[in-house]
């Protein structure tokens, strides 16, 4: 047991030294995400989405169109379905959606944020739509700047690339140049080697991203409502699950080109459907299911809940369980499929 820990520690240390001394790659890992957050904050300094967005809570058999209420026939407004008031109301408060209508209560209600100009404009449209009167409910909440919302997305996306490519490429390169074959001739076991790679990558990604986060928070005055420790736990779990995903990809390949292709196939959809740049609320159901199967989605939803809404770990059971399950699945698959040498 002691020997096993010594082997894992030695391999973790060796890999970490290699990464830290590769200055060009380290610099890139540090500087790139900060530049990207600043750049996007500048480009998207206005609200992210041009449409008016209204959440609707309605019986599951009801169609979200004018037949339910004439207001739902308003052009230029995107109506989408929410299941519970608890999930939808904070979005009104954070100005992420402009209005919320609930048709499940005996007398239908709508919620408007009195600090949201767009909400107040939509309120006039309801009144003028000619349908049954809706009961007005007020709520308030400071608007979340787009940069507060997008920064966790960009940091998460950057971390996703660092996890997948950082581990995937390195192991494939080790296999291609014969280093894995050399290690296989020592008492180091495959699972020990994989744990060492994972630990080393995880530690470095956490250190780098704490730095990047601190820089972004200083430069952009990012909103942070929750606990830093909770955020660290969630980020570590998310990174773990994405590194484990990289282990699966690199389990057998000995071609960096093929590995690069597969990693791109994995990372591109994550960039698009996991809600890095725009909220996936109201996107087609199939897309949301796909997003739910990807670890980045859960990392971002949990990180945003902590940073923007001040959620604690106890409220984040679903994303945490999802990331833990994915970590376990990918890690077992990666270890089962792993081969020291190319066939």
């Amino acid at each position, binding site marked *: 047991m002691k*020997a096993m820990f010594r082997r894992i*520690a*030695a391999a973790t240390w060796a890999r970490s030294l*290699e990464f830290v*001394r*590769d200055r060009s790659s380290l610099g890139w890992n540090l500087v790139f995400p900060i530049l990207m957050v600043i750049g996007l904050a500048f480009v998207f300094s206005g609200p992210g989405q041009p449409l008016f967005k209204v959440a609707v809570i309605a019986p599951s058999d009801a169609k979200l169109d004018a037949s339910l209420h004439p207001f739902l026939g308003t052009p230029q407004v995107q109506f989408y379905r929410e299941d519970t008031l608890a999930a939808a109301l904070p979005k009104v408060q954070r100005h992420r959606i402009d209005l919320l209508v609930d048709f499940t209560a005996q007398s239908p209600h709508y919620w408007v944020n009195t600090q949201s100009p767009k909400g107040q404009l939509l309120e006039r449209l309801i009144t003028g739509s000619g349908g049954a009167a809706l009961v007005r409910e007020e709520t308030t909440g400071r608007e979340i700047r787009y940069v507060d919302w997008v920064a966790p997305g960009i940091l998460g996306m950057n971390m996703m690339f660092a996890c997948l490519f950082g581990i995937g490429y390195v192991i494939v390169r080790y296999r291609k140049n*014969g280093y894995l074959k050399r290690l296989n*001739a020592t*008492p180091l076991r495959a699972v020990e080697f994989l744990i060492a790679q994972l630990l080393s990558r995880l530690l470095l990604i956490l250190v780098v991203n704490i730095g990047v986060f601190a820089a972004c928070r200083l430069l952009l005055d990012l909103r942070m409502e929750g606990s830093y420790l909770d955020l660290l736990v969630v980020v570590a779990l998310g990174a773990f699950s994405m590194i484990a995903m990289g282990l699966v990809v690199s389990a057998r390949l000995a071609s960096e080109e093929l590995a690069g292709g597969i990693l791109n196939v994995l990372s591109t959809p994550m960039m698009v459907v996991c809600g890095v740049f725009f909220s996936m609320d109201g996107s087609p159901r199939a897309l949301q299911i796909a997003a739910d199967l990807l670890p980045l989605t859960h990392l971002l939803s949990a990180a945003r809940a902590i940073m923007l809404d001040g959620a604690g770990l106890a409220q984040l059971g679903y994303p945490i369980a999802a990331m833990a399950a994915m970590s376990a699945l990918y890690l077992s698959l990666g270890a089962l499929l792993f081969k020291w040498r190319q066939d």
Partner: protein
Amino acid sequence: MTNSAATPILEVRDLVKHFKQVHAVNGLSFDVRPGTCFGLLGPNGAGKSTTIEICEGLLTPTAGTVRYKGEPLGPKYRERVGIQFQSTALQDHLTVIENLRFFSALYPVRRPIDELIALCRLEDFLDRDSKKLSGGQRQRLLLAIALVNDPELLFLDEPTTGLDPQARRNFWDLVTDIKAAGRTIVLTTHYMEEAYLLCDEIVIVDHGRIIAQGVPSQLLAEHFNDSMLEVPAAEAHKIAATGLTGLAKGETVEIQTADVNAAVAALLAGGVSLAQLRIRPRTLEDLFIELTGRGLRE
């Protein structure tokens, strides 16, 4: 033969290894006696590396057995033997000493690193990035890595391929020291001089089969009772008149003879210039050509 009474440290029996289309090893059997240097010789593609990797426990044979000290190779085997591959990449950005410490930490029994440094003469470049070593320095580091667990049995797979002659001689000195310390070495090479100098016993392998086996000097004595004279090709036209048979080989003409004195006298009488005459004993390379009809590096 040396140590013929001792129990073999490694026993290889009827080894067969087939890859998808290739029959790399076709029924090899040999014993390696403790404290000796055992050479596997043969041209590229003869099956040397496959054989040594099966003996290292890294490849599973299609058929046949390998036993270490009379036992099948178990899970602990890797802790006990030392291995140097033909070419090995190390991690980037690690120095020589860091590489040594890393590999050392992987083993339960470890030889003090200071001893390894002295043995493999690494003192002058301990803090150098292993990527920036010369070919000879790199092979010495890889040898030291193969010795971190103080193995009784050491496998060296073409350790001097690609080295310049000076570096190769330095490496031979190290191997000689290791052998003198009582370690057993299994060596593959296609340099006949290397095998002749270092090995107590050799097998010559071709197409996955053993074509000759024994002590190098005895093998040569069994197959040859003559020597080789080499004269410059410019003198070739005078040789026919001497009654000797010359075989053109590049810049020289080779003359096989069992009686060197008589042959030199005949050459002198025929007016052949002896200014650049070379007389050499028969080599393992000659033996290989004799046995297969081909050169070793073909």
